[in-house]
């Protein structure tokens, strides 16, 4: 039964975000701040993961496609589709659930425990709107951009690994990228990116905002936020794939 009250509290938190801002300029400033924190703060990890993700994908695909009947360009096709459909949106977002999710939960949890949220409430500020709203909006703006970057870097990483490893030439790889390309895959990946961005930011905000206790509970909230986000990302991944593809 506790799960229903948790879901209810989560929905009430989301509902509570939708009020008129006390000062639009301050909210905008907070939105920009959160967007930079989430976007720029995750840039390096996304870059590194994406390049290696694409590289490993190319090497392992080449290892498996040993038949001379199958064209070498197929390696590039597989890397492209795997990166776009799965690795860029899902794998990157699972990593971001850890990086961004724990940061959001920790920040809000610390603010709750040190009464900073109460201080904002006493001032007459809607804290759900001022603290949670910009985090969710900031994630919705920056995480899809990070996923797009991951797609590009993943595909490039595959090219780099293929050419440096002597698996296939750059021209062959580039030809393979264009073969059988379906633009719908990119839209599907972006739909996943927006869904996962919402899951990561809202779940982490919920856990952090509702911390009760001390530093131990902040740690627990961060962990719970990451685990719950990862599970929901994988579940949503399956649902979206089932209904859209």
């Amino acid at each position: 039964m506790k799960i229903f009250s948790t879901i209810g509290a989560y929905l009430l938190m989301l509902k509570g975000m939708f009020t008129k801002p006390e000062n639009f300029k301050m909210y905008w400033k907070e939105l920009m701040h959160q967007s930079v924190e989430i976007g720029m703060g995750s840039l390096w990890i996304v870059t590194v993961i994406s390049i290696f993700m694409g590289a490993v994908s190319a090497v392992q695909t080449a290892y498996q496609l040993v038949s001379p009947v199958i064209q070498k360009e197929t390696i590039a096709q597989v890397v492209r589709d795997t990166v776009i459909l799965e690795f860029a949106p899902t794998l990157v977002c699972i990593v971001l659930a850890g990086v961004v999710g724990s940061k959001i939960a920790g920040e809000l949890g610390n603010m709750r425990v040190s009464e900073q949220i109460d201080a904002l409430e006493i001032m007459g500020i809607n804290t759900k709107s001022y603290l949670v709203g910009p985090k969710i909006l900031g994630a919705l703006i920056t995480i899809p951009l990070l996923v797009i970057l991951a797609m590009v870097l993943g595909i490039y990483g595959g090219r780099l690994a293929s050419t440096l490893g002597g698996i296939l030439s750059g021209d062959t790889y580039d030809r393979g990228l264009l073969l059988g390309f379906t633009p719908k895959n990119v839209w599907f990946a972006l739909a996943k990116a927006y869904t996962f961005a919402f899951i990561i930011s809202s779940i982490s905000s919920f856990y952090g905002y509702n911390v009760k206790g001390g530093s131990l509970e902040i740690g627990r909230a961060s962990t719970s936020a990451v685990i719950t986000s990862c599970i929901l990302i994988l579940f949503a991944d399956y649902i979206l794939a089932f209904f859209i593809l």
Partner: protein
Amino acid sequence: MIEIKNVYKSFDDKEILKDINAVMETGMTNLIIGTSGSGKTVLQKCMVGLFEVDKGDIIFDGKNLTNMSEEERKELRQQIGMLFQGSALFDSMTVEQNIKFPLDMFTKWNHQKKIDRVNDVLERVELKGTNKKYPAEISGGMKKRVGIARAIVLRPKYLFCDEPNSGLDPQTSMVIDKLIHEITKEYNITTVINTHDMNSVMEIGENILYLYQGIKEWEGSNKDIIFNKNKQLNQFIFASEFLRDAKDMRMLEEKGIVDNDRNMEQIMREGGANLVKGDEEKEDKQLQ
């Protein structure tokens, strides 16, 4: 003025506040005292709207908080300043940014006017020149003063302080008490302080409310408190022998037997001269 009428509050079927009635007067330092778990923090949080009361009314100068809409509450809260037990400063902001935050949020002033107001309140709390420091770089007493500065920057009508002396040494506690008292008089605001610091009670307790297990047991001033006959209150306040001696001294002062300059020496000379002479005779005998 804040009126508390027949307030009840429970958590998970446990009654924390039972039929509390009190008046917090304007221009006075109103203290809520009691042991840990007596309900004073819950009462204060009910007064500022962080908790909803189960029954009863909390009336701010004729406006009932329990009946207010969200918009009305927001408006009221902009007239409230609060100092939290841990200061609750925003740790990613400097002292200046912390104090300027309510001005940024609720005024349309230009930047220079906001900075001037920040500098005025910093000077008032004797923290001039600390604008660029972060909360982690200042002491506990300084954090409390920044908290007070932030609470008064919008010239509130009501000031709430949750254990303002918590974690401070006696000397710094007195500085904080004096500051809160002066600001109360200067701005003619209603100040409500949660405390169990007896120095605060005796020095600035103009209107004291004593809670025991969620019930209002006693109400009065710091002058009345030393003559009170309430057993729980006396056990709470004058717990140590030292404080009981202090109470006796204060009673003598209030009755005019001892003046504020502690004329004990004179009393000993006039009233206690036999004791001194007796001691001298005893000493002579021991030498012999």
